[in-house]
């Protein structure tokens, strides 16, 4: 018997599976938060969620719709401010323990992200919200995971603006730029999960869902994507789906 699920649900669950019990998870809102909350309610009960606004380990009885939502404040171990939150990510002891969950409008083959502008950034055709804390997180934490709609126009050869550093130009270029640690480990998309080659730091298809062939995924990517190592991502288990639907987002605020 096949269980029905949406690509958004699959993304949240693919993210959840990649969160470890000792992770400190930097969250934005939306899908990444669903992933973290699902992990916490399944295999990683000790992972700690925090927000750039300064809230660490809040109760999250309801899903916050912004990182400044009062729902991130209630029941936390500490409610501070931005200075605390970003220092925590840059700190040499706590920073490496942080997994940052990010998203962007454009991504390149080295996992660099654009969330600033489409077109010429001095007079863009589309202005996007800007870095917010994304560049900081991408620069400072132990590892990052990126959420993307998998579309050819979003997976590009050249970003219109490099807002958040991934592996920069690949290889050892990230260290050479004096970035102290970190880099993207996975890109969770509507079609599958990409990872990065250990030495070239180029993106490759690691797992794909059952909604599209690997060849089609490659065709939906604006740069050459190595699909030779791809395995199939297991479908959501009934438990994963149940937790996500009934405990994490019972009102369907994000999933619907």
């Amino acid at each position, binding site marked *: 018997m096949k269980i029905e699920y949406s690509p958004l649900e699959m993304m949240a669950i693919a993210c959840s599976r990649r969160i470890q019990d000792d992770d400190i998870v930097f969250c934005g*809102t939306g899908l990444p938060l669903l992933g973290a909350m699902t992990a916490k309610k399944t295999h990683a009960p000790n992972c700690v969620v925090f927000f750039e606004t300064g809230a660490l380990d809040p109760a999250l009885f309801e899903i916050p719709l912004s990182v400044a*939502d009062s729902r991130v404040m209630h029941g936390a171990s500490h409610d501070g*401010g931005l200075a605390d939150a970003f220092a925590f990510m840059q700190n040499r002891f706590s920073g490496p323990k942080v997994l940052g969950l990010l998203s962007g409008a454009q991504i390149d083959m080295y996992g660099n992200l654009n969330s600033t502008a489409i077109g010429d950034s001095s007079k863009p055709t589309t202005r996007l919200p800007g870095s917010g*804390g994304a560049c*900081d997180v991408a*620069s400072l934490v132990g590892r990052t995971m990126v959420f993307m709609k998998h579309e050819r126009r979003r997976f590009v050869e050249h970003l219109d603006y490099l807002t958040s*550093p991934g592996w920069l130009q690949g290889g050892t270029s990230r260290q050479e730029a004096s970035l102290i640690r970190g880099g993207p480990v996975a890109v969770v998309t509507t079609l599958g999960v990409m990872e990065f080659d250990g030495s070239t730091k180029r993106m490759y298809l690691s797992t794909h869902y059952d909604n599209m062939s690997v060849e089609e995924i490659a065709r939906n990517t604006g740069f050459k994507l190595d699909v030779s190592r791809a395995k199939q991502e297991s479908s959501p288990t009934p438990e994963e789906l149940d937790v996500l639907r009934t405990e994490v987002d019972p009102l369907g605020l994000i999933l619907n």
Partner: protein
Amino acid sequence: MSSSKLMLASEAVKRFVNSGDCLSIGGFTINRNPMALIYEILRQQVKDLHVVMHSGSQALDLLIGAGRVSLLEIAYGANGRLASTCIRFRKAIEQGTLKVEDYTNYQLTLRFMAGAMGVPFLPTYSSLGTDIIERWGFSPDMRSSNPQLPGKKLAVTEDPFSDKASQVVLVPAVNPDVALIHAQKAAEDGTVRLEGLTFADIEQARASKHVIVSCEELVSPAELRKESWNNSIPHVLIDAVVHQPLGAHPTACYLHYDYDMAHLLKYKELADDDDQFETYLKEFVLDIDCHDDYLKLIGTKQLKSIKASPELGYARRDSNL
């Protein structure tokens, strides 16, 4: 002992906010925007503002939409699920009517911290290798003719304490003319207590020449001084205290009320059209005398629906279940 700093929003804005000022707005996206003060700035026709803030939404979008902002230094202009990019902000940049320079949230926090600490810069590793460093929004000419703009957007330098080549980004200080903060509690002597997240409000206040605080509750100085370690800003740094319940509406104020989703959704729809935006601005801001009249327009029923649960600090979504 010291004299009262309590005044109306209209008086505070008249005394401390001028056209051409460099302004910093407290709060963060949908929380604790100092809306009553912003509405008053709009009503008093203050213009040509230079705004420096980290993550703006409603307060910023109205100022931009009303054409009051000439220069903007910012990290983020969006409103969570309500606007993936703030609407008037996006339009103004796309149409080239607003000059903007991009930083990150941490960098803007550091700029306020540096201003508060009285140092010319603070260091970070954030943004090495990115266009945040490479692309500047303001020309050298603009920079040299405006003392409120740093001579350089950012400076990359060698770490003198490292034995290997290691670079670090220096972020320049900013000292705004005025910071606008909305707090849960304040006293007439200027002592301020924020509850819940402080965002970068404390750094913004400490960096600025003048600080106007609006508050939900006006408390006696003696009451706040009973737990002096829980106060957020000492009285000597504050110029004006404005007692304005619901002063952050339609954004949230933790422990008091939630964001007004219905109002923000209405704004989202209207703001997308130039004429409708003007109508909104007239109806909810310009044609209104004061914030209490604005609240009457919003209506008791709506305000009741966003009242925070005392246990949670926000309004339960299933509260009518």
